[in-house]
């Protein structure tokens, strides 16, 4: 029968060799598979006399294991922390699925607004532990501590934050005939200085700018600078959310003034040229400030180290953020916090770890040891002379005292920021009027907030949140 079919197909006998060759390759593959199974990695056995807790942090730091973990493990013997790094961009999915799997880490370090997790019952309230151990909560900066609360309960402990200050390039100041020891104190001075500091090439492209106004989401993120109109609005006393947290007030007089100021500022510079100019902003030695493209910028506290690393010859100064006559300065915070997910196996041990990490001594140690570390959240640490020793840090401390949290609308955080930046882009780049752009944005944010609040009420009527 075999032969017959072969003849009909006019097929060479070789096809059956092919078939057995296929068989061999399948067998080989199975053999390889079996071999690999034998060498399959087994989970590490846990030492039984120690309590072990797992801790998740973010990848991308130079240290594979965070300093606080190593320090904690070294400082005592009864609890051992196993640290796991998760990819920075995927934190949320990973933590989400971990909580769903009823097998979350015992302690987790995150950057996103804590309300996102707290309101979804993902974290354990810490009030009892705080009260029991008499934990000093006044040690933390107000802007950071405020963020840790939801519905009157505390859900996390701040560990570090970003703090910002106004950096300016002394060399470029000199070249433009400005006094390098007199940085601008008001935003109008910034505008005036910018006119002197902006240079063009032969074809009319901008090659250097005094101050670049940040109004685009991707750009503010890549250049580590906050949104300019937001800072101005905060300085003028803007409030974006009603006190009861139910009404969004994106359209408020101070923010509108800030946007009008922004439009005024950008008038002398063609928007397309500015866009092309900002397209050249990169990382490291191509960062707008380190590459001396922009002479004045609001930058975070890691930048002195950053500049020393990438452009050690840069001649720059740090000053208070400019403001308006009669208005206080404003700054942004950005909090990293530690929390205990619900369903964790050993909350007591996790709590010991968290207290340790947030303590003054450890924060100081961490700051000195790590490269480009973030600002400690513990005020006692930042008031210490060790911290202030190189003089540059005092100004960041001042700014953090005046900082506001970027978690402006906790229950609709992401929508708020998406709409916030879309509106800014449409106003500056898309030539939409301020009323129209803000109006659309506010409607959308309000709508999402309403939905979130309604849903939240519904859920809380059905599920028990706190064991009171």
């Amino acid at each position, binding site marked *: 029968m075999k032969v017959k079919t072969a003849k009909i197909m006019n097929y060479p006998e070789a096809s059956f060799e092919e078939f057995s060759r296929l068989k061999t390759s399948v067998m080989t593959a199975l053999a390889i598979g079996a071999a690999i199974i034998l060498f399959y990695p087994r989970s590490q056995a846990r030492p039984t006399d120690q309590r072990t807790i797992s801790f998740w942090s973010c990848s991308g730091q130079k240290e594979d294991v965070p300093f606080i973990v190593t320090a904690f493990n070294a400082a005592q013997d009864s609890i051992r922390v196993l640290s796991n790094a998760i990819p920075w961009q995927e934190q949320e999915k990973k933590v989400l699925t971990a909580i769903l799997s009823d097998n979350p880490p015992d302690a987790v370090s995150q950057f996103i607004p804590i309300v996102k997790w707290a309101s*979804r019952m993902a974290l354990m309230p810490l009030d009892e532990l705080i009260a029991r151990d008499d934990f000093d909560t006044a040690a933390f900066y107000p802007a950071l501590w405020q963020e840790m609360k939801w519905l009157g309960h505390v859900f996390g402990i701040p560990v570090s934050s970003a703090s910002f200050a106004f950096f300016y390039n002394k060399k470029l100041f000199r070249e433009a005939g400005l006094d390098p020891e007199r940085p601008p104190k008001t935003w109008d001075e910034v505008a005036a200085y910018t006119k002197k500091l902006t240079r063009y090439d032969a074809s009319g492209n901008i090659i250097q700018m005094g101050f670049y106004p940040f109004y685009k*989401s991707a750009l503010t993120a890549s250049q580590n600078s906050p949104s300019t109109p937001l800072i101005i609005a905060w300085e003028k006393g803007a409030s974006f959310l009603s006190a009861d947290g139910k009404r969004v007030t994106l359209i408020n007089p101070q923010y509108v003034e800030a946007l009008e100021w922004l439009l005024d500022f950008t008038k002398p510079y063609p928007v397309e040229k500015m866009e092309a100019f900002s397209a050249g902003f990169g990382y490291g030695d191509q960062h707008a400030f380190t590459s001396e493209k922009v002479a004045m910028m609001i930058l975070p506290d890691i930048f002195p180290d950053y500049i020393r690393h990438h452009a050690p010859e840069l001649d720059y100064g740090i000053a208070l953020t400019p403001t308006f006559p009669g208005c206080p300065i404003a700054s942004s915070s950005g909090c990293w916090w530690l929390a205990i997910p619900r369903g964790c196996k050993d909350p007591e041990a996790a709590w010991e770890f968290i207290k340790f990490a947030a303590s003054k001594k450890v924060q100081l140690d961490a700051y000195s040891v790590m490269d480009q570390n973030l600002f400690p959240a513990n005020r006692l640490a930042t008031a210490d002379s060790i911290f202030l020793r190189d003089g540059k840090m005092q100004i960041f401390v001042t700014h953090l005292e005046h900082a506001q949290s970027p978690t402006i609308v906790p229950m609709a955080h992401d929508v708020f920021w998406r709409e916030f930046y879309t509106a800014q882009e449409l106003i500056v780049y898309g030539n939409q009027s301020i009323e129209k752009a803000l109006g659309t944005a506010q409607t959308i944010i309000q709508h999402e907030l309403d939905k979130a609040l309604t*849903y939240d009420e519904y*859920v809380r009527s*059905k599920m028990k949140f706190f064991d009171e």
Partner: protein
Amino acid sequence: MQKTTKNPLYKKQAWLGYLFVAPWIIGFLVFGLYPIVMSFYYSLCQYDVLRIPQFIGMGNYRELLFEDPYFWKSAWNTAFYTFIRTPLVVIGSLLLAVLVNNAMKGIKIFRTIFFIPSIITGVVLSALWLWLLNPQYGLINSILAFFGLPGPLWLQSPHWSKPSIILMSLWSIGGGRMLVFLAALQGIPKALYEVVDIDGGGWWKKFRYITVPMVSPVIFLWTVLEVIFSFQVFTEAYVMTKGGPMNSTLFYNLYLYYKAFDDFSMGYASALAWLLMVIILVVTLIQFIVGKKVVYYEGA
């Protein structure tokens, strides 16, 4: 062959048909049914994954069709991307496959070189293209400048952002798609080409009357597949542009992702997903109807 159901051969085939298809059916019942049913249920609810769903009926669908400007915006962006990219990419791969369908010396190396760009993915791919398409110092604009042409702002311009992403796709025309076309080309019997030779036809006649029809099942395959994939474009926009500038690259799936994992509005995202599926299904069915008339199956 007799087609009546009384034909014993046909009956046996029917039984065997079910047997052979059983792995998929079992797999679907075990792994597929529950998630699909649940996602449909969620689309009728407000739900944030970590808490309980709140049933709201057609509320999500009503909102996204009648009140949500981003639904329409993202649908338009996605349609633009899909219908421009698909023909470019399918034709490009086919032409490349024809080019490498021979036994010239070193052809293996050429095929491998063509294949390599298609396996660059993720962060690396995005970093690469952010650099290539940089308006100031990217390679593409440098080459354009060399020819005296003005270079657009590419990913930073609301008009050029989608074409930029489509341009990126073109580098993958030597990938798996080309491979499939190659396999199909190699199944075309020599004899058919010899007929054209005898008739005195040239390469165009061969291509138009032999190659294309014989490969049409695979062309059809890839057109349908590319439409399905293009409608779900996500990664490039997520990593490189985050939907900007000015929402010009806010694709449907990206908007869905924001709703699902940033806003935790899983109910709304599920509604978006089901609506997308319906749209893709309709477009695919249309393609099948057209395909019946246009595609040539040797085995039919």
